[in-house]
């Protein structure tokens, strides 16, 4: 073996060398002769384990170290995006009969701890983001994702083979994407850049998740004064619901986005088939959330047993007396108790307030009251539709002053979150970092979000009538691709040219409920141009 190859071998097999020791290492090098390369050292270890009294796992350790070296040296191109899910081209898989990966990660010291004779699938790959090499024991979930893609199986076929929900296969593949083992196609939920300021970062153009806000029933145990919709609608059947879920999965697969289903109503728990539908949603692999009213602990336990929701959001309208006047006597206390229960059960909680002229002065006091009770608190301006037309918004001037106070209060109150797009104007004025807007992309109406009512009617936004079609009669793809939906995505033309458009776009529902042409006339509360 040449001097350079000997040096190379020392660098490639540091763990093997430390185990073998100086003298036996020299012996091995001497035995290798002049023509041997570092790669051939792997075979050398295997053949000399018994002769030199080396540890029985040494040949596999050498194989693992060599493979790591190969992956480190790999210059193979890792595409930034794929046309379909595909394996990371740098990925290597080793079948080991010793648990060796902790030693390569520095978790265990090979000179102090004896590896255990356990079967281990080692995966070695370059992270596509930084090309850093990772050496990990593969979980069954990771192996499944790798196997399914290596065998060119569809998730459906794999699910059939394992007799498990297809959502479990989807999740396995998505988890592998997170780890960089699998390359994913680029999301097709993208803003039309023509209408955004030049230089808008990609992260404000492309959505990776699509949310279905699903009003599965209009039945409610409350009778709030500002309820947006008390109409009686044809009840959703479980079969219709499952069809919507299958359609949504197709939409998400075709657009390369993750699906998120946000159950609401009415009170979604009053939908007779709620748990069956929730279970079907989980089985499809969608993440879930709840917008509802307080429910008994047993219901939350049942919910969590199926799938822990990303969050459970309830509403409060101000301090106790005002809240109970809007939502019903005793409701404030019920909510506070319920938030405590959610915390006990490790379910993330959120509180939403619908802002009116009557409760604008109560927002910040309520935010203080909710410290230690809720994880997140924010507000949404009243849309004067449905029963909401009986209430009214504060004046523009009062609202602007409030927004400044809200932003200030957020500095000191960790539960305050931002939602109203116009908060970005305040942040802009203050020279502070902007937030991502109402749905993560400013106004997300018919962009990364659709609302569906119990009778299948799809709306661009639930805060005002914005019908796009019916999911019982059309596919979500057809609805999403319709001209009407495109018009909502396009947003208000009056916002064109605004530097904040990507994270704002004002609020179509406010403009609409003020009798304006929401596609031409901007949110009457916008104060960007006067700054």
């Amino acid at each position, binding site marked *: 073996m040449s001097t350079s190859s000997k040096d190379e071998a020392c660098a490639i097999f540091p763990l093997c060398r430390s185990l073998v020791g100086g003298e036996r290492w020299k012996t091995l090098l001497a035995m290798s002769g002049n023509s041997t390369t570092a790669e051939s050292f792997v075979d050398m270890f295997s053949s000399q384990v018994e002769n030199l009294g080396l540890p029985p796992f040494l040949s596999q350790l050498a194989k693992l170290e060599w493979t790591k070296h190969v992956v480190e040296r790999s210059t193979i191109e890792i595409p930034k995006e794929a046309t379909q899910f595909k*394996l990371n081209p740098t990925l290597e*898989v080793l*079948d080991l009969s010793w648990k060796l990966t902790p030693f390569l990660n520095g978790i265990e010291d090979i000179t102090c701890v004896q590896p255990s004779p356990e079967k281990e699938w080692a995966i070695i790959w370059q*992270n596509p983001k930084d090309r850093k090499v990772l050496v990990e024991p593969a979980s*069954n*979930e990771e*192996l*499944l994702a790798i*196997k399914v893609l*290596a065998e060119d199986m569809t998730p459906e076929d794999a699910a059939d083979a*394992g*007799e498990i929900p297809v959502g*479990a296969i989807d*999740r*396995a593949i998505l988890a592998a994407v*997170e*780890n960089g083992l699998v390359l994913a196609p680029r999301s097709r939920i993208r803003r039309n850049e023509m209408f955004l*300021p030049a*230089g808008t*970062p990609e992260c*404000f153009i492309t959505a*990776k*998740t699509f*949310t279905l806000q699903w*009003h599965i029933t209009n039945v409610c145990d409350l009778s709030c004064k500002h309820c947006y919709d008390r109409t009686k609608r044809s009840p959703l059947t479980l079969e219709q619901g499952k069809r919507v879920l299958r359609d949504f999965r197709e939409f998400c697969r075709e657009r390369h986005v*993750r699906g*998120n289903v946000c159950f609401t109503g009415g009170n979604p728990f009053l939908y007779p088939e709620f748990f069956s539908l929730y279970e079907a949603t*989980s089985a499809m692999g969608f*993440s879930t*959330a709840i917008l509802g009213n307080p429910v008994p602990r047993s219901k939350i336990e049942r919910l969590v047993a199926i*799938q*822990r*929701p*990303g*969050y459970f*959001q309830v*509403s409060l309208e101000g301090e106790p007396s005002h809240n109970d006047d809007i939502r019903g006597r005793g409701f404030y206390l019920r909510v506070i108790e319920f938030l405590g229960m959610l915390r006990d059960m490790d379910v*993330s909680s959120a509180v*939403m307030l619908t802002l009116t002229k009557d409760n604008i002065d109560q927002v910040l006091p309520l935010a203080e009251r909710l410290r230690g009770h809720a*994880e*997140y608190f924010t507000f*949404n301006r009243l849309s004067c539709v449905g029963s909401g037309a009986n209430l009214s918004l504060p004046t523009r001037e009062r609202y602007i002053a409030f927004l400044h106070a809200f932003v200030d209060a957020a500095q000191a*109150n960790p539960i305050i979150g*931002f939602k109203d797009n116009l908060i970005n104007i305040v*942040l802009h004025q203050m020279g*502070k*970092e*902007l*937030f*991502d807007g*109402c*749905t*993560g992309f400013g106004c*997300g109406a018919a962009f*990364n*979000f659709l*609302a569906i009512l119990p009778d299948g009617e799809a709306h661009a936004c*639930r*805060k005002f009538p914005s019908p796009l079609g019916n999911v019982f009669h059309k596919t979500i793809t057809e609805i999403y691709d319709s001209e009407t939906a495109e018009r909502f995505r396009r947003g208000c033309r009056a916002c064109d040219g605004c530097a904040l458009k990507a*994270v704002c776009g004002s609020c179509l529902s406010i403009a609409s409920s003020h009798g304006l042409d929401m596609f031409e006339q901007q949110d009457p509360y916008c104060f960007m141009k006067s700054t």
Partner: protein
Amino acid sequence: MNKEKIRKVLSKVGVAGLATTVGIFTSAVVNAGNSCGKGSCGSKKVEASEKAEDAGKTSCGAGMKKSETKKEEMTAPAKKETKAKKKKNKKEAKSSCSK
């Protein structure tokens, strides 16, 4: 490693066996770690796994805390692109309104 080589290495394990264990495993993961949704509206951001994409992890802790919201804040579109991109994953699944 090409696909054929991986196929060969993994020929000892069957999809059915793996899928069965994954079915159980995935369910456990969802129940244990999917509580990090965030968002703001009826409006909260969800999505455990996506949020932690930058960190390469699938759990993201307390989801909706303001402190995290702050982290997600971004710069004006044309300004601090890098930071905004970095935080983007943590804010994807917001829906749009309160009920």
